[in-house]
């Protein structure tokens, strides 16, 4: 009864307070308003949602965007429309992450194993990547987002390869926000590629055999394009609980967040849920604190 009474009183006081606000605001001087404005809002930043601490934001978030096809089936749409919705969601996701202060976002767009899918679907995906990248170059430039594409890239169409190079070139000078797209990527291929890279450098006399350690090896992985190759948080949507050959080496101490929501439905609230869950965890990186 007491709590209900207090709820009622607080609601009533809120309503009265709102009505009285014009009177109280008349008392504030222009000088005070200027003091409030200066230095408290930075253009382009998202106000940190309640429950999240800006200083505990992950530096690098990776996402496995699963569930586009199932989403399309449930919505009565074509698979291609599901992938379109997924691409749109990725841009929104990346934008939100950058606004919240996350510096690097990696997305698993197409795995090496996905070549085994139906040819029509694969062609549709390649066409989607090309169209989206091309249409978003100006957006990436205006938002100062650096775009990198990692993966084998040997089988992808020439036209898409050209668009990838164009996008990377147009955005390479931006430092603060980094979007990494994994296309034709395999974690095992990444490790093997690093082995070959080490061999090549050794042949060129750049490194000796005894220099090869974990740190050097890590610098030869495809994620060498970023200062933070190991994600702090991995999100996988649609309820599957696997990392499916994505960033195998890099995910050693990454927080894993498996969401039952399908990727095109993974909206702002879901992102915040994942980040809140991340910030609550006690990460020890294998050591005892």
């Amino acid at each position, binding site marked *: 009864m007491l*709590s209900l009474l*207090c*709820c009622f*009183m*607080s609601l009533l*006081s*809120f309503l*009265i*307070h709102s009505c*009285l606000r014009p*009177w*109280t605001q*008349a008392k504030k001087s222009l000088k005070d308003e200027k003091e409030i404005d200066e230095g408290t809002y930075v253009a382009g930043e998202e106000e940190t949602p309640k429950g999240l601490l800006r200083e505990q934001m992950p530096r690098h978030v990776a996402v*496995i965007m*699963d*569930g586009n*096809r*199932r989403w399309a089936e449930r919505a009565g749409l074509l698979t291609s429309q599901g992938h379109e919705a997924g691409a749109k969601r990725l841009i929104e996701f990346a934008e939100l992450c950058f606004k919240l202060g996350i510096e690097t976002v990696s997305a698993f767009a197409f*795995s*090496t194993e*996905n070549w*085994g*899918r*139906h040819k029509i*679907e694969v062609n549709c995906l390649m066409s989607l990547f090309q169209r989206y990248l091309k249409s978003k170059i100006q957006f990436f430039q205006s938002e100062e987002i650096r775009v990198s594409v990692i993966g084998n890239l040997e089988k992808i169409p020439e036209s898409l390869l050209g668009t990838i190079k164009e996008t990377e070139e147009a955005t390479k000078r931006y430092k603060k926000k980094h979007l990494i797209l994994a296309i034709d990527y395999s974690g*095992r291929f990444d*490790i*093997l590629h*690093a*082995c*070959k890279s*080490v*061999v090549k450098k050794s042949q060129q006399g750049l490194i000796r*055999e005894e220099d*090869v*350690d*974990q740190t050097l*090896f890590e610098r030869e992985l495809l994620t060498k394009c970023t200062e933070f190759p190991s994600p702090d948080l991995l999100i996988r949507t649609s*309820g*599957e*609980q*696997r*990392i*499916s*050959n994505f960033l*195998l*080496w890099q*995910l*050693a*101490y*990454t*927080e*894993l*967040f498996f969401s039952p929501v399908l990727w095109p439905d993974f909206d702002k609230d879901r992102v915040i849920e994942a980040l809140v869950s991340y910030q609550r*965890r*006690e990460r*020890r990186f*294998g*050591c*005892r604190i």
Partner: protein
Amino acid sequence: MDFNDPMLALSSWIGQIGDFGLGLLWRFIHIVVTLCHIVSGIFEAVESYAISLGLIQKYSSTDIEKLKCLAVVVDIEAARDVSKVVELLEWLTTIGVKQVGLFDSQGLLKKSKDMILEMVPRSVLLQETGEKDTSGIALEFISSSDNKEAVVKAANILFQKYLKSRHPGKDEEGENVFTESHLNEALRVVGESVHVPDLLLVYGPVRSHLGFPAWRLRYTEIVHMGSLKYMRYGSLLKAIHKFTGVRQNYGKGLMVITESRDSNRNF
């Protein structure tokens, strides 16, 4: 001006009541949420207990053949309590799991290997059984040194092999040394197992695999089980049962949605 001062005072007074009321409301909501968590926890405990007693029919008929290799990641705090690990292994033996990889980042379980093998009935080291079927449970002890360090050592082995196989003017030939199967072989030479677990259970406060050998985790299902200290047989059986109901496409092919309890996978 005169009119504004009483209005300010009134506004301030109302604001204070409002703050008090809101504070009470917040605490009330907090209590409700806490109660929900408690009820949910009780429900899970009851369900787990019911599964342990065999009261829930569907968990009594788990197709354990699908689970060829299970891995368990244990937080280092939990790894210090070997008795809990032994209890878990006894449960897994009861369920019928044949092969288990035990991982902790610091190698504490490796150090307690002999004790664990002694305490778990019909347990043997995986390296000793090879690929043979055993009546008991084959155990493998893994730590972080088997992860990245092992891959680097294996990479060095491949590098040496490449140098030996290279012919002048035929650089591409050496590249045939760098395939997945070659790295698997090199890992075996280094002394590492390449058994790929079907299911990875993580016991600890953190939802991370804590450095489990990356090369082996490609399509492994990862399930976070909570604290080892409060582990339940029912939760373990439920996680294994859920895994056996899963169908993987390994990234290929179109899926077919059925009305069975199977969940369909893309990757």
